[in-house]
């Protein structure tokens, strides 16, 4: 249970960071951009956690 909460928390933190980065770097902010950005950021957040764990376990 604790592990799930930790994993969710980490992915959420990555997601907030990456979505913020997306919103800062795009040209015009509209709903479609936000949707695509939030989706991509979620995928990237999962990948970021996987990469962080792969580095940490070595």
């Amino acid at each position, binding site marked *: 249970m604790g592990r799930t909460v930790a994993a969710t928390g980490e992915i959420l933190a990555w997601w907030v960071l990456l979505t913020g*980065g997306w919103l*800062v*770097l795009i*040209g015009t902010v509209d709903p479609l951009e936000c949707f695509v950005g939030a989706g991509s950021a979620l995928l990237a957040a999962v990948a970021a956690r996987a990469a962080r764990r792969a580095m940490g376990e*070595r």
Partner: protein
Amino acid sequence: MTGWLVAASVLLAAGFGPTVWGVATGPLERRVVAQNFGTSVVCLVMLLLAQAYARPSYVDLALVLAVLGPAGTLVYARLLAEDLTDDPPHARVLTAVAASAAVVVVAAMCLATGAGRATVKLLLIGGLLVAGNVIASRALAGGFPKGAAASRD
């Protein structure tokens, strides 16, 4: 001819000219430091040109260069590690110059741009430039011991 264009031209001539010379001639230690410095200079020139020509899309080039420049230097640091161990290049002055120039240019552009998303983007580029310079310079100087990398392999 605006001040931004003059600043970009001066930086290109005074910064990038000697850099090309440094990359093309001399010992390996100097070449690798010069190519690292070159990416920072071109990145700052792109920022200044974006302001001079009022073309915000040039800022994206600077952003890409701020990320890929130090990453490229880290690749060189890794590939040339054996050649650089005898006399690792210490470029503290050059790193300080590049970092200071980045701070000055980004601060000036932030003042000219005003508050908004563009300013956050500029600050991000500035942070990447300074951090990238410090990390790349430290890696070239052998600051990251080989043992740490070897234990991971």
